[in-house]
């Protein structure tokens, strides 16, 4: 096989893998069986395509090859007959006979959406939801998923097996939820996508600040959801938020791998195409009918940051106002903290310190290093140097990520 032919086949696999797997799961009613079928289909393609050429509709070819291989397997191995339920076997055979229009994009879209809702089902624990989504929807190898969670490949493989077993044994459906519960379930899906993004954007531990691959996967998922559920305000809001953050990612880290604060970032490095796409989505989300999504409000805040020509032009009073909207919609300690930082830019450090002290007094986030770092900064601005040093010290003790630790150590040295 020539290198260019191999390249073309590779490219088809990359493009079609997600759709093929999602549809095979529906047809076969079993994750493991579908994954094996997908591999079998790819293996058959590598064998046959170089001599016979790539078929006109490679996706349909791969799906029917995968389905036929799976049914061969079921027939051949008693093991599988016990493993999958009789009704699933019957369904797989019925589908084999049924003529589906393999070129119908809507069917594949629906299958991918089903797969996302199944992987992000609330009956699975949060970590399992993220891991399954990365593995099954994004098609990341188990090893890469394991790296994202800082566990061994074997541990991750076991977690994935457990999650898939629960899907099968507890009867978690392979279905897009009814309209009545769709909004609620979408929130869960978006939390998973945002979880993938934030883990990529500010890893919780390790030596690297940004895991570009995870950010890219999260944005890809966001775009996919926006295609599958067009006009959904929460989906648009989250996609906008991720794009506006991602646009700044190359300027967030210095060449030496150190943290660069927003004020000091080189604005010429920001990705203008992501920014304009993000800004358009914020507008669309906030002006569309339906509920106001907290993601869209956060995206609007990010838009004010990137929209300012330079740091002096940042519209802090409006940012404070948006944080107050956000606190009413969806209050979390992290949002309270960010609100306090914005307040410090408008009303000064004394008022901001009150807010942060009140947050700390409620004891919800005492292990969160950024809370102590913010306290340190406010105290320093107020000239309370000893207390500032102490607060930065606590921040350093609770921070786990190397670049952030270096940043905090530099702050302490500067005082």
């Amino acid at each position, binding site marked *: 096989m020539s290198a260019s032919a191999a390249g073309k086949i590779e490219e088809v696999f990359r493009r079609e893998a997600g759709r093929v797997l999602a549809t095979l799961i529906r047809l076969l009613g079993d994750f493991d069986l579908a994954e094996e079928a997908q591999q079998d289909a790819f293996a058959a393609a590598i064998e046959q395509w170089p001599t016979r050429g790539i078929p006109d509709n490679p996706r349909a070819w791969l799906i029917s090859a995968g389905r036929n291989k799976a049914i061969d397997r079921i027939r051949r191995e008693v093991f599988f007959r016990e493993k999958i339920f009789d009704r699933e076997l019957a369904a797989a055979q019925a589908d084999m006979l049924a003529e589906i229009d393999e070129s119908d994009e809507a069917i594949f879209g629906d299958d991918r959406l089903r797969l996302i809702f199944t992987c992000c*089902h609330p*009956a699975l624990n949060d970590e399992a939801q993220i891991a399954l989504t990365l593995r099954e929807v994004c098609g990341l190898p188990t090893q890469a998923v394991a790296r994202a969670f800082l566990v061994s490949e074997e541990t991750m493989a076991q977690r994935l097996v457990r999650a898939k077993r629960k899907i099968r*044994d*507890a*009867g*978690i*459906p392979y*279905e897009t*939820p009814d309209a009545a519960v769709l909004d609620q379930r979408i929130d869960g899906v978006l939390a998973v996508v945002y979880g993938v993004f934030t883990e990529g954007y500010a890893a919780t531990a390790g030596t690297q600040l940004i895991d570009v691959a995870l950010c890219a996967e999260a944005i890809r998922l966001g775009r996919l959801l926006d295609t599958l559920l067009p006009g959904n305000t929460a989906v648009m809001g989250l996609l906008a938020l991720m794009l506006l953050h991602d646009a700044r990612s190359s300027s967030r880290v210095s060449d030496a791998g150190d943290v660069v604060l927003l004020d000091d970032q080189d604005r010429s490095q920001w990705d203008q195409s992501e920014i304009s796409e993000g800004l358009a989505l914020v507008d669309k989300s906030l002006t569309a009918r339906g509920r106001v999504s907290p993601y869209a409000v956060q995206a609007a805040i990010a838009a004010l940051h990137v929209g300012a020509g330079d740091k002096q032009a940042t519209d802090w009073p409006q940012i404070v106002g948006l944080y107050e909207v956000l606190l009413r919609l969806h209050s979390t300690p992290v949002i309270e903290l960010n609100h306090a930082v914005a307040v410090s830019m408008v009303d000064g450090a004394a008022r901001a310190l009150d807010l942060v002290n009140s947050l700390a007094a409620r004891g919800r986030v005492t292990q969160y290093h950024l809370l102590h770092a913010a306290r340190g900064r406010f105290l320093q601005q107020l000239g309370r140097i000893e207390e500032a040093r102490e607060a930065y010290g606590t921040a350093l003790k609770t921070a786990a990520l190397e670049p952030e630790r270096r940043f905090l150590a530099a702050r302490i040295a500067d005082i």
Partner: protein
Amino acid sequence: MNYLLLIYSNEAEMMALGEAGLKKMSDEYMEFTKSIVQAGQFKAGDRLKPASTASTVRVRNGKAAITDGPFAETREQLGGYYLIEAKNLDEATAIAARIPGARIGSIEVRPIWPLTG
């Protein structure tokens, strides 16, 4: 699939509802049970006497030891159950959410693992 819905609640909190409150809840249970019988989802169901009436049996070295009380002291106690037939977990959890006790306690939803012979 068949699912067992285990109804847990804090018995002291239940008693605190008072006679009128308990009567109202019992009426709601009658209503709920009727609805799942009519929908063809009901297979079995009962309430249980309080955990103070429970005894636990263990057989060790061929000898049965009987002790007072449930296996573990917990904040919520098993107070009843339904055995239902549902299409999948989403349908089962939707039924569980309609159990009156879900509003004050919690419902554990467990798929039945059929014996295969």
